[in-house]
């Protein structure tokens, strides 16, 4: 027999499995030279940069929908309020005249309305001036000190003298009555709610900007 036996050995029917698994006859190759014991600083920095880039790009992709719907659709950029308490944006100027607690209920066109036990009816007064022809109305919400937001016109009676169902912002047509000097709206809140700010929003015509008027004593 000449030369070393071939490995693996040629298949022979009936041959034992152990022969197939027999160790190689050749000596093991020489071990590679040992790796350097320190990692290069450049490699570490590159690894960190790549990691940050990968995480960042994944996060950017995953958050695309959230960024679109929240960042542009939700009201999160408050319009600055000047020293006189007036906030102006896109031709609309709004001032919070007052937020007043109405104890004892209100008269509607046909009956007396009293809030359910444990709730309080509040009246919000807003002075609006506008030269904007595209914004007709704004959602008016009262945010309490716990961060809860209550929308005016919900769970409140209709047909109360001097009270509007919603806030008018549209510049009146020539010949129409001008906007009332102060517009009053009603909002119902639980007894433990303390008004902190009045928010005026519109997801269609204003977002992400909104009016945030602090409630002062």
């Amino acid at each position, binding site marked *: 027999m000449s030369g070393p036996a071939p490995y693996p050995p040629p298949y022979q029917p009936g041959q034992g499995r152990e022969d197939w698994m027999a160790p190689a006859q050749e000596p093991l190759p020489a071990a590679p030279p040992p790796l350097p014991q320190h990692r290069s600083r450049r490699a570490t920095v590159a690894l960190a940069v790549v990691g940050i880039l990968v995480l960042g790009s994944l996060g950017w992709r995953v958050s695309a929908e959230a960024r679109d719907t929240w960042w542009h659709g939700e009201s999160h950029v408050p319009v600055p309020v000047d020293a006189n308490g007036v906030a102006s944006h896109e031709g609309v100027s709004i001032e919070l005249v007052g937020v007043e607690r109405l104890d004892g209920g209100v008269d509607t066109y046909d009956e007396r309305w009293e809030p*359910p036990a*444990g*709730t309080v009816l509040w009246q919000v007064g807003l002075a609006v001036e506008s030269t904007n022809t595209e914004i007709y109305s704004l959602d008016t919400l009262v945010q309490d000190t716990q961060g*809860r*937001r*209550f*929308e005016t016109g919900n769970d409140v009676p209709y047909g109360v003298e001097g009270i509007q169902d919603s806030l008018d912002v549209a510049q009146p047509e020539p010949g129409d009555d001008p906007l009332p000097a102060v517009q009053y709206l009603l909002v*119902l*809140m639980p007894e433990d709610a303390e008004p902190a700010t009045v928010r005026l929003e519109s997801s269609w015509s204003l977002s992400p900007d909104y009016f945030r008027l602090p409630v002062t004593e």
Partner: protein
Amino acid sequence: MTGRQFPAWAVTVVMLAVLVGAGLGVNALEANAPPNGPIGVRMTLGRDSVVHPLQVNVSGARAYETILDEDENPLETVGVWVLVDLSYATTDEPSLPGDFVLVDERGRRYPITGRDFGEWFASPDLWHRGTLAFEVPLDALGDLTFEAWPSGLGPGSDTPMPYAVLALRVDPGTVEPGPGVVEEPELLPVGER
């Protein structure tokens, strides 16, 4: 390499801080937009359950052959009407709940009827009690599952939306001829459900 500028402990501290920060960020993101599909919250009959931004309290379900619509005319059906009595409010923002679904044992899903009535607008901690009407075939009765989806079912099943589930038992033998009356949603005094 020699001339190390930052001590090992500082590198370790910074890396730990980055890890913890990333973890907190992911947690916050997950709480607001769960990335792994719908998250079911199990409700208990007669108890308040919270699925942001909704708080729900289901008091029970009953079945009728006929119910009266808002003009008090009988609404006929080839199946039965299942009326679910519940009260709900929101936690922190005004909202109209997205979807309410009744699922039978065979997995068939029934939305609230489109023939009349509907869900109602909810405000923070101001509870309304009312009734949701579902029109289902008679063989759907038995063990039912009630689902409340505060933000709606979403455009696809992969859209992560939180929802609440409740097992409801409505026996086929307890169907009343009716007509059942669906009460207008009523604003409740604080503390009532």
